[in-house]
């Protein structure tokens, strides 16, 4: 795991070492072990290295084909051993043991199609000096980040936006449309980011720059419409195949020249992955988890139970309200986008624990909920659609009460209110975004906080319209459950979970996360499964639970699912909280930045100060405003 950056001059200029040096210096947290810069005429590549594979021989930027090809690479290619053998069979000669060199020779052998041969998590750039061609690629799920922009005379790319901002010619401005997306979907829709003219390579896409032309193309998307391929197989056979795939996905993710640990959240997914890791490494397994002082978020009893059952050496870091308030500015510096939740903070503390314990690599259960039917939003959509088939029914909406058992304030709501909030209209039923409409409706209300000027800048921009241009052509005719899965996997997973809670929080402490559920073979298998094996009636992750029998303790297998959450807005108003929240939310600071309405923010702040804020809406609003103010203070010049 590393940081990468680079430049390609689009006029007749030459790449500049000082510019590349300034860019890569901002990414030293991603790669503290070494750094390198290579000038290649109009192109320049830079690399900050976290040494995990081939500690002696893997230095970058690296070349092949008599220095015709140069690469800077962030990530891991887990099938590099098999791919290397394949390439050796084709006559390619290797001088290192690294996966980096495997990519270079795969590119030589297969050109831009090389990405189809890779199983891993990556962001890389290859400069072909003979063709004067720059090729960028990002992994299928979007585990590793890759941003780019174009200035007057250069194309620039980097693992994090702050490296692009190290170039004075790159403008720093909040994108009103990006903000509108975040205050609707919680994330931006790639290629958009929170900053104007800063783009991201979407997951499963590559980008080529040749001459003055930039071409972005999709090379992978899980195909959800092949359920016929598994139709004649029994549940037992499918559960066995799922487990077999996860075992192999875990096995190849243990390839490392440094020790590997595992996160234990107390749920099924991470417990299964930890169990599978344990089968390979035996009694040397180290596990790590986060506990909360606030009991409503704490799952440490389940974590301890899983650790005891699996026999891991377990370490826990505890997170308090004060910790969240203390670390939040650091978090925003790393996430580089506004947040509506503080949940990345504990992940930041957890990666510090991992690093302080001498580990650089952890495996986690991320991705299972998206691809195997684990989320409450899938359940919610199923209930709403069931109700929608008989809108006059008085008992069908009572099922709404079955949702969100961990949210006390939700359970106390009268059914009449839930019926109206989750109401189903014929227009809703016809929408391909049916599953997410209530969530987005709730989030959209936060835009009432925006200032008149900022709302004018957004104008009549239509975030849903833009989203619609990015979904597959046949999306509207997909099975309803699949549409919801796609929205979670394609946008929220990479845009928030894998970035703000994943890559950014882990790399802040130079730790690499690896995700067996996001092995493309597992993803493609899951995409083929009939939806009733993912959620049987209202039983989430049905097939995964079946595959876990005997591996995961029954108490964890059958427990009520509790999504990972953290204390939100009130953390910033506790006695002894750091003063920055008060300063950044003051009418003066709000007016100065111009994004939010000072009066509306004051009303919100006063509600928190008086102890009257108790809703998800207020929490999201407070965290959304504060994180945006922090982001602007960190990255935007006044």
């Amino acid at each position, binding site marked *: 795991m590393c940081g990468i950056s680079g430049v390609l001059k689009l006029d007749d200029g030459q790449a500049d070492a000082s510019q590349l040096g300034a860019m890569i210096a901002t990414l030293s947290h991603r790669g503290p072990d070494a750094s390198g810069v290579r000038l290649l005429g109009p192109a320049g590549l830079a690399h900050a290295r976290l040494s995990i594979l081939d500690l002696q021989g893997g230095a970058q930027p690296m070349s092949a084909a008599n220095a015709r090809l140069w690469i800077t690479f962030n990530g891991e290619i887990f099938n590099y051993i098999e791919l290397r053998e394949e390439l050796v069979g084709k006559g390619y000669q290797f001088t290192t043991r690294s996966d980096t060199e495997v990519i270079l020779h795969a590119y030589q052998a297969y050109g831009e199609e090389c990405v189809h041969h890779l199983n891993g998590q990556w962001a890389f750039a290859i400069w072909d000096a003979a063709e004067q061609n720059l090729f960028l690629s990002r992994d299928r799920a979007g585990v590793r980040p890759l941003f780019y922009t174009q200035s007057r005379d250069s194309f620039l790319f980097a693992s994090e936006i702050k490296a692009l901002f190290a170039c004075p010619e790159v403008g720093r401005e909040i994108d009103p449309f990006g903000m509108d997306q975040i205050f609707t979907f919680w994330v931006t829709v790639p290629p958009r980011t929170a900053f104007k003219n800063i783009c991201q390579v979407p997951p499963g896409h590559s980008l080529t720059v040749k001459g003055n032309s930039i071409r972005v193309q999709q090379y992978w998307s899980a195909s959800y419409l092949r359920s016929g391929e598994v139709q004649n197989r029994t549940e037992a056979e499918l559960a066995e195949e799922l487990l077999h795939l996860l075992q192999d996905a875990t096995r190849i993710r243990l390839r490392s020249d440094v020790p590997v640990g595992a996160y234990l959240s107390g749920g099924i997914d991470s417990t299964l992955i930890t169990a599978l890791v344990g089968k390979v490494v035996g009694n040397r397994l180290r596990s790590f988890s986060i506990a909360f002082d606030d009991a409503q978020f704490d799952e440490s009893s389940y974590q301890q139970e899983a650790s005891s059952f699996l026999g891991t050496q377990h370490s826990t870091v505890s997170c308090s309200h004060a910790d969240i308030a203390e670390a939040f500015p650091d978090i925003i510096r790393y996430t580089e986008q506004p947040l509506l939740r503080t949940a990345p903070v504990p992940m930041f503390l957890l990666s510090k624990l991992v690093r302080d314990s001498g580990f650089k690599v952890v495996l986690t259960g991320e991705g299972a909920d998206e691809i195997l039917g684990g989320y409450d939003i899938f359940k919610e959509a199923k209930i709403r659609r069931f109700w929608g088939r008989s809108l006059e029914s008085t008992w069908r909406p009572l099922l709404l009460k079955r949702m969100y058992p961990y949210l006390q304030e939700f359970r106390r*709501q009268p059914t009449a*209110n839930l019926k*109206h909030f989750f109401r189903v209209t014929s227009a809703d039923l016809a929408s391909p975004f049916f599953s997410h409409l209530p969530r987005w409706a709730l989030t959209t*209300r936060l835009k009432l906080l925006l200032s008149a000027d900022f709302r004018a800048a957004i104008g009549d921009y239509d975030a849903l319209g833009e989203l619609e241009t990015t979904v597959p052509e046949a999306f509207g005719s997909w099975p309803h459950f699949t549409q919801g899965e796609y929205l979670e996997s394609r946008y929220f997973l990479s845009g928030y979970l894998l970035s703000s809670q994943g890559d950014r929080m882990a790399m802040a402490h130079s730790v690499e996360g690896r995700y067996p559920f996001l092995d493309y073979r597992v993803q493609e298998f899951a995409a083929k499964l009939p939806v009733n094996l993912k959620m049987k009636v209202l039983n989430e992750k049905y097939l995964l639970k079946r595959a876990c029998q005997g591996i995961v303790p029954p108490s964890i297998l059958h427990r009520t699912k509790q999504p990972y959450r953290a204390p939100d807005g009130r953390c910033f108003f506790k006695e002894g909280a750091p003063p920055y929240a008060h300063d950044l939310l003051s009418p003066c600071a709000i007016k100065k930045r111009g994004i939010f309405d000072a009066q509306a923010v004051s009303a919100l702040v006063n509600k928190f100060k008086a102890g009257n804020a108790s809703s998800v809406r207020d929490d999201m609003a407070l965290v959304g405003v504060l994180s945006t103010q922090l982001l602007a203070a960190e990255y935007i010049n006044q």
Partner: protein
Amino acid sequence: MQEPQSMETTDTEHEIRSFLVDNFLFGRADAWHDDMSLLGNVIDSTGAIELVMFLQDRFAITIEDTELVPENFDTLNNVVSFVERKFHSKA
């Protein structure tokens, strides 16, 4: 809990409107209009309890779960009428 006071419709309406605007619309009075449907549009998935708590505290009335129906809560007028009925029946 505040002491219940004598009830004037305009005052009651003003207080409830202010609460709804401050609590659910972040004080943005320009986003409010008096005949808008509250359920689903103003009061969100967890907001009904906040409104009930406010009404009980401010007007010293007790609201039963069975009274949480659209006829009593779907518009500002409905809420005001409901509160006045409760208040006067109590007296």
